[in-house]
């Protein structure tokens, strides 16, 4: 194993620690603001992992959509509703059901990641963007278009809800 691979391994582990730490902190802290910031750190660290796995495009999109979009949206919601004092966990009616669902989903993800043949760090092709673009407009066209329709429907729904509240 060469030195540069060593460094990549080390960075991979470091990002992993940040990601796991951020995720844990996000669910453990009582302050909603801190929880959101920890989530942002977690998502950024995952973007770092994507980059080390030679998925540059995915890494940048992760920053673009999740850190620059979703986290900002959450902060907006928090600040406009000014409910920073109350933790969202307090609003869950059936914590047992929630916990059970989380375990099932977590186990599913774990099973999937353990059985799938994942590429090793540093491996990957340079034209991953090209392949992804072709897949999105080729074999995966249906799911791509479907997601577009779902997003459009949610935008329209949001508009309808806002209008009803105004009347």
């Amino acid at each position, binding site marked *: 194993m060469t030195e540069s691979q060593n460094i990549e391994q*080390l960075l991979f582990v470091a990002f992993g620690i940040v990601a796991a730490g951020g995720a844990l902190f996000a669910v453990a802290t009582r302050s909603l603001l801190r929880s959101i910031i920890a989530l942002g750190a977690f998502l950024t660290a995952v973007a770092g992992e994507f980059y080390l796995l030679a998925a540059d495009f995915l890494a940048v*999109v992760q920053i*673009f959509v999740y850190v620059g979009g979703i986290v*900002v949206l959450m902060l907006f919601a928090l600040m406009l509703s000014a409910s920073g004092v109350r933790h969202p966990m307090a609003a869950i009616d059936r914590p047992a059901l929630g916990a059970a669902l989380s375990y099932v989903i977590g186990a599913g993800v774990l099973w999937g990641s353990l059985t799938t043949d994942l590429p090793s760090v540093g491996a990957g092709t340079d034209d991953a*963007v090209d392949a992804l673009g072709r897949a999105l407009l080729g074999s995966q066209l249906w799911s791509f278009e479907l997601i577009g329709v779902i997003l459009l429907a949610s935008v329209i729904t949001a508009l309808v809800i806002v209008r009803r509240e105004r009347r």
Partner: protein
Amino acid sequence: MEMSLPLTFAAGLLWGAAAFTIVGALTAGLVLAERKVSARIQGRVGPMHTGPHGALQTIADMIKLVMKEDVRPARADATAFRLGPLLVAVPAILSLAVIPFGAPLVMRDLNVGVLYFLAIPGVTVIGLLLAGWASYDNYSFLGGLRSSAQFISYEIPRSLTVVTVVMLAGSLSTVDVLDAQATVPYAVLLPFSFFLYCVTSLAEINRLPFDMPEAESELVAGYHTEYSGFRWALFFLAEYAGFFAAAAFGAVLFLGGGNGPLLPPIVWLAVKTAALLFIGMWIRFTLPRFRADQLMRLAWKVFLPASLANLVLAALIMRALGS
């Protein structure tokens, strides 16, 4: 190139320190240039006393800022208050990493460099929101909300405009985009894109006529009202680093960056960037400020449809050129 682990990290630290120093020097130069340009436009002489023709004024200002007391409001959220300026300044400096300053002078030729440049400033918004929220002050809070709303709104038409360049170049790498303009710069092929890029960039980096978040007459100083000393300097640094990055990126995307006869690439890029920066300053001291609601209406009802139409137009141009 193989290096031992500690050496690699030392090199990384050095790169980081160099980037920060360069951005600091750049900010000093830009602030001085801005003060001189504004003075010229307003019929004044600008700073004159420190150094020849006031050339050392911003250096003196920087020393003053670093030595100032760091005041934190008593009710401020300490962690978020500290995190805010960092999250604003770091992405602004990071975005310089993909700008090709000349053939070998690009820190990282990512094959998604253009997308990276558009994505990284998104992190800035988190910093703005945090700074405004943590200050525990109405002006800061409103300023933070306004500037992030503005940023998000203008990010969309700006990205859609840059897509036209990517379509024509057929690559997301900034170096490839530059190479594709070897004969004709994209400002000639896509004049409307160039115009849209300039206007939306001014809005995204919160400069006049789009500097609502800092509108002195209504919001004191927006999200950084409560900041002082070095933390305030970080906001300032981020603002000018963002201004420079937007101009340099515009020069690379539309004016052919370092391409040009005789002179070395870095000189050409500097000349083109300086021209864009000058236009930015010129606009700042010529046009009045928009109102917050006018600004948002402009983003969603004018720039978004215009950038979508521009995308179709670019596709038609591509078809006509037969590429």
